[in-house]
């Protein structure tokens, strides 16, 4: 046993050292130590990865079986379709897992301390409530993130099949991570509020299930009862399933209904999540749902976090000092400002309608966001040389960068369809123009040919034929205007009837030459031929 003199007397100087040494959050250290101990954490991880792998393989088999059942062996390359289906299936699989695992990890975090009667001991230490809360959140989410990120290498099998852009994968990850954080915070909030793990778990699951299904239910009910009128998309803002669907919706296999039919998913999941709708002036690109979801989740998480730091306290749970209140309001105002600023900055991408597909299709007026302006066709005002520069730049961009076949794939032939725009309102390129384009593309690796109709160069096994001579077809749209200096052109590249990618490009005159400066942030992949 110790003599009194040998007990450390460090009280005075450790106060000073706190400032000098960074120490990891004790709660994180403790939680991770006990969470990652033993076989359980690794068994769950292994099970999760095996499940994901099985889901990937299952989706692959389902797509193949569906294609053979519907089309027989005449189907061209189903690769992109497999990639997209796997992507969508995996995204939903992981999302549902997150919805079910997160509460299990967080609802006991604070109430467990009450249940195990360790809460008072914790509260008697100088640990601040927010340190405890942060520690609990980080350690619980750390494990979920481990699951999500461990599945990335597995999910990158998707890229073997193609049909999915890395950007979409990134968006999916953002949604998964944000959903995990929000639901984790929700679990912690109820845990701190109710102090009982059982009740907190029930309530957390109830709220999560409501956000998952009630918006979809209301939306579909309104769709059914309002006879074709689109209900407000705001109903779906909080729904993570719709957020995921809105990422997927940019690929048209999903939009065209092929994807849901393969997964047996209800149409309601996708109908409200569409980001591209027909307006009176053509196709309108709406801000994708997931961006609203993320902004709302961020705000919700902040509010719950601030409330929980108060609720976790042993005394004065409901009494909030004016300083705390002011600080909380400031944080929320800053967040709101940042979110609003972000939406304002990117507003130009979405509020302008581009005359992408020609003919306006009649559509209910309430879909059209305010601020959409009709864009006059001004290519007559452009000189032929300018038009040629624009189209040549788009062709280059499509073939060399955006073909989704990697950098500089060597297509022996590039067929450019002479017809511009869609069937009903198409115009033919003048020979003057086609010659100018050929001239601009004279240094191109592939040989360039103009064709009157894409069907001329597609293998005669409809509807999925490959392009003749291993070439690609390029279909171009009218030149529209985003503003006075920025032209918008729709372009798509088809390596087979169903294997295609399309974007709306922004072009500006740089050093006197028209160049692609970006796209509208939306793209579609693999669309059935418009001409069918």
């Amino acid at each position, binding site marked *: 046993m110790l003599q009194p003199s040998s007990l450390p007397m*460090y009280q005075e100087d450790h106060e000073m050292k706190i400032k000098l040494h960074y120490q990891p959050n004790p709660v994180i250290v403790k939680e991770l130590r006990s969470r990652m101990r033993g076989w359980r954490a690794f068994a769950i991880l292994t099970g999760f990865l095996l499940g994901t792998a099985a889901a990937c393989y299952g989706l692959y088999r389902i797509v193949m079986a569906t294609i053979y059942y519907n089309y027989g062996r005449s189907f061209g390359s189903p690769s992109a379709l497999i990639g997209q289906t796997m992507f969508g299936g995996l995204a939903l699989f992981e999302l549902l897992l997150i919805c079910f695992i997160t509460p299990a990890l967080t609802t006991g975090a604070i109430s467990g301390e009450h249940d195990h009667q360790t809460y008072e*001991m914790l509260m008697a230490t100088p640990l601040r409530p927010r340190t405890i809360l942060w520690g609990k959140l980080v350690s619980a989410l750390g494990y979920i993130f481990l699951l999500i990120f461990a599945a990335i290498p597995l999910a990158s099998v998707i890229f073997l099949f193609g049909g999915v852009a890395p950007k979409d994968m990134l968006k999916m990850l953002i949604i998964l991570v944000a959903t995990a954080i929000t639901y984790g915070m929700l679990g912690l909030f109820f845990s701190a509020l109710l102090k009982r793990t059982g009740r907190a778990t029930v309530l957390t699951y109830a709220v999560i299930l409501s956000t998952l299904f009630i918006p979809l239910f209301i939306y579909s009910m309104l769709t059914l009862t309002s006879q074709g009128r689109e209900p407000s998309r705001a109903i779906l803002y909080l729904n993570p399933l719709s957020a995921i669907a809105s990422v997927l919706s940019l690929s048209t296999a999903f939009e065209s209904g092929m994807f849901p039919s393969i997964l047996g998913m209800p149409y309601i999941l996708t109908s409200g999540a569409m980001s591209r709708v027909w307006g009176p002036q053509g196709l309108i690109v709406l801000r994708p749902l997931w961006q609203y979801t993320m902004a709302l989740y961020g705000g919700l998480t902040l509010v719950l976090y601030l409330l929980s730091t108060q609720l976790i306290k042993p005394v004065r749970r409901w009494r909030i000092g004016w300083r705390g209140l002011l600080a909380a309001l400031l944080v929320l105002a800053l967040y709101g400002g940042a979110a609003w600023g972000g939406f304002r900055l990117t507003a130009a991408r979405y509020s302008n309608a581009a005359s992408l597909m020609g003919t306006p299709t009649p559509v209910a007026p309430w879909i059209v966001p305010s601020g959409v302006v009709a864009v006059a066709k001004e290519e007559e005002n452009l000189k032929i040389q300018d038009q040629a520069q624009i189209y040549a730049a788009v062709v280059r961009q499509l073939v060399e960068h955006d073909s989704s076949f990697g950098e500089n794939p060597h297509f022996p032939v590039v067929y450019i369809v002479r017809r511009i725009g869609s069937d009903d309102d198409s115009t033919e390129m003048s020979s003057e123009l086609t010659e100018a384009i050929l001239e601009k593309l004279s240094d191109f690796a592939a040989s360039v040919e103009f064709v009157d109709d894409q069907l001329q160069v597609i293998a005669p096994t409809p509807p999925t034929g490959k392009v003749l001579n291993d070439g690609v077809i390029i279909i171009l749209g009218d030149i529209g205007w985003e503003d006075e200096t920025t032209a918008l052109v729709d372009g798509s590249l088809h390596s087979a009837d169903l294997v295609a990618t399309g974007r709306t490009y922004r072009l500006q005159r740089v050093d006197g030459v028209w160049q692609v400066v970006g796209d509208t942030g939306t793209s579609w992949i693999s669309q059935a031929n418009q001409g069918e």
Partner: protein
Amino acid sequence: MIAIRTHGLTKRFGKLTAVDHLDLVIEQGTLYGLIGPNGAGKTTTLRLLAGLLEPSEGEIYLDGQRVRDAQQASRVIGYMPDFFGVYEDMMVWEYLDFFARCYHIPAAQRQQIVDELLALVDLTEKRDAYVQTLSRGMRQRLCLAHALVHDPQILLLDEPASGLDPRARVEMRELLRELRAMGKTIVVSSHILSELAEMCDAVGIIEQGRLLVSAPLQEVYRQVKQDRTLRLRVLSDQERAIALMRNYPGIGEVYAANGDHIEANFVGDDAATAALLTHLTAQGVAVVSFGETANDLEDVFLRITQGIVS
């Protein structure tokens, strides 16, 4: 120097007043026993002192400084709750290491402190055992050790010996004596009086939230017990001795206790007691032994709390 002082400390839960204008003064370096029946307000008092509850009224001063928030209290106080749990999947050393981290103790000292504390509470060989495998007595000692990681000058221990077997109880008592020898102020609450009687320097008796008595142990006995219990044994003729005593002034109840002992309540000082013995021998009673029974805290407690409980 005064380690703990409260002034009009009051805590109400709705209509219930758990602690009622408590004026507590505890000297530094004393082992103070807080006695009271269940529900008297002992735990509430300790929790108020530890900053886990906010007083409805009144002030708390620790080491002469007014306590305003839990953060401030947590640095000078080590608190061991009456019911406590242990984290699962955690080793004994990790448990102490966790609390040492909570008190922002630098990494360089943490290891040393953990080992020293394990030695202090005699758990060194359980260092790498899982906490949930420890016996009740060991957990209690571990919990005590956790309250010591930041070397607090004041220890608040809520029923530290409850549920312990006699051996573990003795060990706990030894430990508390040792801590007192280190100069710490220790407040121990208990409803088991005998264990407090043996080790406390001072006691406070609390009932229905009110502090009835608070003084050094000997003083309490003196204040409370104006009468004493005499215990004597006579060689023969017990009946006559009892009859004689019944007639003696100042004697209350007289009865034959176990075997051939006689016990009697007697109001009077030492001189009167001596006179009683002289009287008995003068009357020819053959007194074999004559003495006062040891002071009994239980008895004191019953007297003080009489009437209020019933």
